[in-house]
């Protein structure tokens, strides 16, 4: 149980994928204009992250290592991630067409979200167990969702604020992201990894 919480906390806050490791910045900047869209995308990405973390661990441990085919890691992980993203897109399109319209291109782009591949690769690099790998994926998903939704909320507030002309739009968003990143540095040392 302790392992579960420390892994989740470490992945979500201390080594937050977006603000500390700077992975997955594309949807972070692109899909955070509205809180609803950000929440939907973080749920979809979270599902893909956890699923691909588990599947890639299984592929690595049960297929690639016994056959000593570790060099196929990247290719087979991309296959898995692509499949997981397609499945998620299918589900979202059939279940909630409005969310599908809001997310648009960012839904299939989860496949090229480097946080997803990052989790899979970091998992195999640090030789975690399957349970730890899934916890790590879920923690990364939690951290991604937390950061994306809070950033979406901040940007929604910025829209109504009187921002100086030179900082309007993406400039103030990038500055906000930088300040959030500094704030997340405060979590360093919370969990010993």
């Amino acid at each position, binding site marked *: 149980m302790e392992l579960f919480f420390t892994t989740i906390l470490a992945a979500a806050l201390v080594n937050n994928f977006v603000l500390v490791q700077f992975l997955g910045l594309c949807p972070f900047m692109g899909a955070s204009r509205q809180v609803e869209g950000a929440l939907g995308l973080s749920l979809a990405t979270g599902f893909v992250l956890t699923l691909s973390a588990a599947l890639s661990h299984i592929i690595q441990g049960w*297929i690639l290592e016994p056959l000593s085919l570790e060099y196929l890691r990247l290719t*087979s992980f991309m*296959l898995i991630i692509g499949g997981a993203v397609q499945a998620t897109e299918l589900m979202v399109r059939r279940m909630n067409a409005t969310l599908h319209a809001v997310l648009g291109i960012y839904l299939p782009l989860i496949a090229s979200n480097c946080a997803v591949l990052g989790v899979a690769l970091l998992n195999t690099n640090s030789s975690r167990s399957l349970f730890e790998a899934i916890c790590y994926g879920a923690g990364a998903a939690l951290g991604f969702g937390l950061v994306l939704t809070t950033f979406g909320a901040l940007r929604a507030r910025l829209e109504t604020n009187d921002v100086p002309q030179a900082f309007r739009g993406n400039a103030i968003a990038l500055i906000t992201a930088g300040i959030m990143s500094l704030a997340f540095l405060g979590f360093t040392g919370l969990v010993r990894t």
Partner: protein
Amino acid sequence: MLTAAATLALIAAVVGGLLWLADRRVPQRSADPVHRIEALLPRIQCGQCGFAGCLAYAKAIADGGAAINLCPPGGQETVDQLAILLGRERLALDEHRGSASLAQIALIDEAVCIGCNLCLRACPVDAIIGAPQFMHTVIADECTGCELCLAPCPVDCISMRPRLSEANA
């Protein structure tokens, strides 16, 4: 080498097979009225109904805020189908909405065209090809006759012509 290829092929086949199964099994949630309405619209996104595209118009119909006879490209046929789907009264097509229809196509007078590329950006279906400073032309098969390219043209070189049928082409 052989094992590697076989392994990748196996993984790809399993993933593809599962996706195929999911595609067959997961039901389309068709209870959503907006999407059933949108499916009846022509979806050429011409905006002549006064809404930003067919999905927006479908939402407005579903909310009860819009009449069902505002879609010129769909014609009377679409109005009738919408009336049946929604159980509303059959209306005549609103004549004031413009004359866009699939029965016409845009034609660019290439002698007058200055290659400003404004019509190209206005086209919702990418039926106009060309580059800045070059002649533009219309792909007849792609043109939906929505008339959106007429307004932005600074030299008024685009006109709407009746679409020639196969017989007299």
